[in-house]
């Protein structure tokens, strides 16, 4: 055999490799030419020993080239065939990817619960820690320590649910403010907390009332806290919750537990301040009550009003949810209709 024969053999082998149409066929071709014992090319390689030393170099080179070429061709063809077979297998497993599915992968947050988490996050930026307090309170914490002695006219706005005996000493808190007292009595200033939670008032359910609803209370007590600080804080939070371009106004008000007292309104989003049904023609929507903690309340909380001051505020996430999400009936918030929940 000569180098020329080797060339012909190679050409034949390459042709068969190219012609193989399955991985098994290709393996047969490989065994025929490169089989370890009797492959035609393998056998041709064994002739090397029969050649004279001066012929060996040339033939050896030719053999190496030929077998290298065949191996490469085999590999390429194998990859091609393997890819083709995988594709066929996958085609057999065809699925209609446009088919609509039913299972919701992820559940939805409740708008009010979600809003409370959002409010907590905003206040976390300002160093406020979210704390909880009991929903059932005594008169002392819900009213008296907050400057509302029995018969105080301001109690009228807090139409209170009382418990029956033997638990007759307890009431359902009418606001989250008692947690202010608990926080002041339980630790020393500086103090920065917010208190999200449920409260209840004796209002018959209607589109603008539910007897149980949520509040988020906030309290900041330190040396030298001012009404300017309250204003700055409220503006920051309202911008965060309602968007930076929403107009805000602070209005003088009255609460027994703060002085000076303020209420915050945001411009009505429905009418842009012109007046409409949503804002009762006022152009503004009340969202928050606040003020500088009354010196008497500070004292009741064990804080010296001569050295410390503070501000407090309270907002209603249910109401804010109504405003932000365009709800028309507050009661919808407590019916858990999935058609509503799935929008959040």
């Amino acid at each position, binding site marked *: 055999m000569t180098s020329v024969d080797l060339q012909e053999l190679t050409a034949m082998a390459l042709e068969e490799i190219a012609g193989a149409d399955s991985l098994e066929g290709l393996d047969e071709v490989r065994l025929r030419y490169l089989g370890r014992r009797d492959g035609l090319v393998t056998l041709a390689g064994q002739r090397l020993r029969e050649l004279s030393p001066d012929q060996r170099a040339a033939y050896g080179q030719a053999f190496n080239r030929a077998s290298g070429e065949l191996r490469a061709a085999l590999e390429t063809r194998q990859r091609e065939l393997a890819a083709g077979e995988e594709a066929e297998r996958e085609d057999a497993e065809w699925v209609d990817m446009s088919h609509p599915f039913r299972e919701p992968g992820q559940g939805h947050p409740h708008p009010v*619960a979600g809003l409370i*988490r959002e409010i907590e996050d905003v206040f976390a930026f300002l160093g406020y820690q979210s704390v909880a307090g009991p929903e059932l309170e005594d008169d002392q914490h819900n009213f008296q320590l907050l400057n509302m002695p029995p018969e105080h006219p301001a109690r009228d706005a807090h139409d209170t649910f009382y418990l029956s005996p033997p638990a007759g000493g307890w009431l359902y808190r009418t606001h989250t403010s008692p947690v202010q007292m608990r926080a002041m009595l339980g630790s020393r200033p500086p103090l920065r907390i917010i208190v999200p939670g449920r409260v209840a008032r004796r209002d018959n359910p209607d589109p603008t009332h539910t007897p149980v609803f949520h509040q988020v209370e906030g309290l900041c007590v330190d040396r030298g806290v001012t009404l300017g600080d309250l204003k700055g804080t409220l503006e920051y939070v309202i911008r965060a919750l309602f968007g930076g371009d929403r107009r805000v106004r602070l209005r003088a008000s009255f609460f027994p537990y703060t002085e000076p007292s303020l209420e915050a309104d945001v411009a009505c989003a429905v009418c842009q301040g012109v007046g409409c049904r949503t804002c009762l023609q006022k152009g503004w929507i009340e969202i928050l009550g606040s003020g500088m903690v009354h010196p008497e309340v500070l004292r009741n909380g064990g804080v010296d009003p001569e050295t410390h001051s503070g501000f407090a505020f309270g907002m209603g996430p249910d109401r804010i949810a109504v405003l932000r999400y365009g709800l028309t009936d507050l009661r919808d918030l407590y019916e858990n209709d999935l058609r509503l929940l799935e929008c959040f």
Partner: protein
Amino acid sequence: MRVSHEWLGEMVDLEGVEPAQVADLLTLSGTEVEKVTAFGVGLDQVVVGEVVGLRRVEGSDHLFLAHVATPGQEPREVICGADNLFVGALVPWARPGTRLPIGAEIGRKRLRGIWSEGMLCAPDELGLGSDHDGVLILSPDDAERGTTLDRLYPADHLYELEVLSNRADCLSHWGVARELSALLSRPLRDPEASRPTRSSLSPSVQVTVDSPTDCPVYLAEVLIGFSEAPAPDFVRRRLAAIGQRSLGGIVDLANYVMFEIGQPLHTFDLNRLPGVERGLEVGVRRGREGESIACLDGVARELDAETLVITVGDAPQAVAGLIGGEASAVGRGTSQVLLEAANFNWALLRSTSRRLRLRTEASGRFERQLSPHLARRGADRFIHLAVRHLGATLGPGAVGGAPLAPAAAIRCDPVWISSILGMELGPDEVASPLRRLQFEVRQEGGEVLATPPPYRTDVSTAVDLAEEVGRIIGYREVPGTLPPIRQAPPPEALEEPVARLTSTTCRAAGFSEALSLSLVSGEREALAPRLRRDLPHLELANPLSAQLGSLRLGLLQGLLQSAHHNQARGQDKVRLFEQGAAFWARGQERPEEPWMLAVLDLEDDGAADAVTRLRHLMALIASLSSVGGGGVVEFRPVTWPALHRARAAEVWAGAERRGIVGEVAQPVADAFDIRGRVEVAELRLDGWLKPGGRPGRAPSLPRTPALVLDLSVTVPSRALLGPALRAVAALDLPELELVTPIDEFLGDQLGPGFKGWTLRLRLRHPERTLTTAEGDGVRQAVLRVLELEVGARAR
């Protein structure tokens, strides 16, 4: 409260100030204007006509034919249903073609064969209040024939005010004018009030007040010689503007003074009081058992020691501050009057008002701690107007109660006020708004001494002054700042709270977040499954209804209700969770408020699917415990009320029962009107899950390979896997890293009453590769335990 722009304008110059600006100033300073409405607009088409002839329309028992004239014009015929016309009366006449303020278009109308040329108007038809008792009769002193009505009733604006509960002083035009005077920096013109020389031609009067605590001041004034004339037009016009009906000259005047000055007044017909001849003995005392009084509203009221009454000659004549008696009521023909200007204890009046379920303009003012100093002012204003406009003469008067303490000066430091408000204010800047509010202000050293005007009962401390200064300057002027954070971050600052962890985990598992009212129907909740089943409900003493009469013991009742709600609205799949407090009674002690989680999975589907959903729910509980650091969860089969007797388990973690999980029993689902199988769980999270959850410490990770072996056994068909795995875990074999059940099957070759389990054991030694022999040793140990625990046989 409603106030008139025009009326305010008499006390403070509002020239050039738009109603919208007034509304804005008042609102921002605390007196919220809820609505501004135009009044008396469109009266320029209605003319003043004179009734020159009047007769009944033939064949009608209630229609009159009036001949109405204007100067230089022939009288026209107008048909009218009102019975208060008389020849010579000046009346508002809407001629054909007129459009009335209320929107009606007036035409020529044929009635009973007569052409009626327009209409004579009642006040309500002119947009001048709600009075529809008859045609508005105009006073010849003010009305000029042929002129249009807008000259008599100038267009006005009305403000609907929400006065703050501590600002009784603002429940009057004068009070609101004081605010505007301060806000606009324009001078205040106090309403004229004077007391002429007393005549001695009338009966004397004496006042005895039992308790000055009940009644700090009681002024009694005798006025005689009232004419029968109605109150002057400006009084009636303004009262009409704010929606008050005209009730005759004397009563109108008293009402007018109340709305102007803020002091409620009461007038008794002197001649209908007992003891006029000897002199009037007025008393203010508590009622006595058995006494009663017939009131002005026609109701007879029983009196008792909780009720303060006004007596004359010891006979009750009025319930103090609330309502007068019928017997001494002022009416037509009253010519002599006993005027009462008093102040009553606000708390007493409040409870009386509640008990009698009666609230009047007067009681509403007293309840808000009206200043007793206002009584004198109110009396004098009434006297002034009565003498001037109703021809009255002042007789004797008397005062009861205790001497009124003058308001005390309040000392404040402008530096302190600045530090509260967060704006630099010097003594002058603090003094100026206070002066504008009629405070008497002195400066002493750097300090400001301010004495509030006597009618400001809400101002008594330095912080009250700070608020006055702040709101009059306007909070718009205060620069907003953020206070520096000085407190240390709380130790758990970066840890995710349990409630959030729970919400995230449940939502990730496909459940949506629900919130239900914490007030429930106890009867209904008794039907629902719940973790705590041995407690009675905490009941409300004053519920709105039985449906909302009890505090919830658990959260599943709410979710079942929501499941029904959703199914009824066409949802075939409902997955909800709720977390929140439940309320567990502890007798008189503070009730316990456990933080609960309830989860519900409903699908109106086949039974096999229900098991998958139940397992999914259990997987959620396990992963919740895992992320919340609650430890390994164990489900112990149990029979539980309201749950399927063969599909319920307690959830245990460590040595504590944390919850229940299972399928709602069919009758219970039926009771909640739910179709299909409902899988539920209720867990108590507090004391179990921890903020931050996982330990957050890295373990040492062994690098040696694991040896994995499968073990197949045959067990009785109701053998429990949970206890079996626990028993294996209890072996505490150091090499046994993990046991996973990979198959459970039934088969003929196992025989009836048996099933097969295949468990996969993962073994590892931290330092070396385990041998097959070692692996077999572990497998044998596991098998022995399973034999003991559930009677397993190797297969």
